[in-house]
């Protein structure tokens, strides 16, 4: 295959690729933000919640972490419709990734919270802080610092996992590339291009993570 024809095809497919990139980034960003929020709630409940709540959260986290992402994606797409709730592919995909991400972040947050010495909570109590205040001003700021590298890692994993949404018809980078290849049969070139897109996104995430770590580095 001559390079000129690849560049030619690339130019013709530019808007489709752009849309796919935006879709992949958007889906990942939505799932990471939603999953982080969910994970915070889960992590705090797991580390500090009353027994019944802890039990429910533990069951949820173990179930989700033990299920392949592809199964979650398919389940999110097909199961709700049996209850008469029709999610489009995009919503189902984001839902599946959010639930998955939440379980992972929940486990990370739990670990970080439990590694903080109990003296920190007692010191907060002794100056009259209420428990939610201790969580917000003493425990979580320390936990954030500890979870940052693992959290960034989870984000990168999630970007890669988002490629599974192409199976239920979400127009992400992978699906767009497959459509383009269907037209021009340049499979090697365009699959490499798809790989390069994921690499670029994750490289950016990693750089962001390093910058954040430097900023938060303990004195």
């Amino acid at each position, binding site marked *: 295959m001559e390079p000129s024809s690849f560049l030619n095809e690339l130019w013709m497919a530019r808007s489709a690729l752009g849309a796919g990139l935006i879709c992949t980034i958007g889906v990942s960003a939505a799932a990471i933000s939603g999953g982080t929020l969910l994970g915070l709630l889960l992590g705090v409940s797991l580390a500090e919640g009353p027994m019944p709540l802890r039990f429910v959260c533990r069951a949820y986290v173990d179930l989700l972490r033990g299920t392949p992402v592809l199964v979650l994606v398919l389940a999110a797409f097909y199961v709700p419709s049996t209850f008469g709730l029709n999610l489009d592919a995009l919503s189902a995909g984001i839902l599946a990734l959010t639930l998955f991400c939440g379980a992972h972040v929940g486990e990370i947050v739990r670990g970080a919270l439990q590694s903080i*010495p109990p*003296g*920190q909570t*007692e010191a907060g*109590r*002794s*100056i*009259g802080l209420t428990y939610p*205040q201790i969580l917000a001003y*003493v425990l979580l700021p320390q936990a954030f610092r500890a979870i940052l590298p693992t959290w960034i890692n989870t984000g990168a994993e999630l970007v890669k996992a988002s490629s599974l949404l192409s199976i239920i018809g979400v127009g992400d980078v992978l699906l767009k590339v497959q459509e383009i290849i269907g037209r021009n049969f340049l499979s090697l070139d365009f699959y490499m291009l798809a790989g390069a897109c994921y690499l670029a996104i994750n490289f950016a995430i990693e750089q962001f993570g390093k910058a954040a770590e430097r900023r938060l580095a303990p004195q």
Partner: protein
Amino acid sequence: MSPLLEIKGLHKRFHGVEVLKGVDLSLNQREVVSIIGSSGSGKTTLLRCVNLLEEFEGGEIILDRESIGYRGTGSGRKRLPDRELSRQRAMTGMVFQGFHLFPHLTAAGNVMLGLRKVRRMERAEARALADTWLAKVGLGNRADHFPGQLSGGQQQRVAIARALAMNPKLVLLDEITSALDPELVQEVLQTVKALASEGATLLIVTHEMRFARDVSHRIVFMEQGRIAEEGPPAEIFGAPKNARLVEFLRSSRD
């Protein structure tokens, strides 16, 4: 005048083991009382009960005419809700053996947290008060340092400033020099002596006998969950009556 702190018949058990077996102790305003005794005698637990870091099964703690930690008596006795406990905890200040400074905040940040979130002060006002207290404990030039950049003695003095800035009615000092290198002990004890001479009400658990003798109005000797003897320093150290106290004093002199 009624005492500032009144502990009546305090009972506390850990997993079935009784560690406080009916402790009665009262403390007047501006009084400095040191509790001495061997480890496991219940001194620290007693302090932690007053700061409501521990629950207790029997007896009553009254601080400034207010019953602490519980409402009602007998079978109708109930732990107060979290918000009430927090309010009562802010009436006492506690300094811990292990400092427990917040590592993500500067020295000033450590002192300001309670002022901002509990006392609801404006940032500038809280900062000014934090600076005042840090200067008072001799750390005026360390306000923007993080705990990790301070020595143990400096960290403990920040912890003292953090407790005192909240303007507590009573300050609890729990073996505050036990985790320090020997050469750093004196700077912390000097800080406490200065507080005592300014009229702070202090309840101290300590192994520093000379310090206890110098700073206290009264010494309490605890033995196996009970107060075995109490009195003015001169009496406790000069003419101890309880056999266990005599033994304890001899062993701590070595």
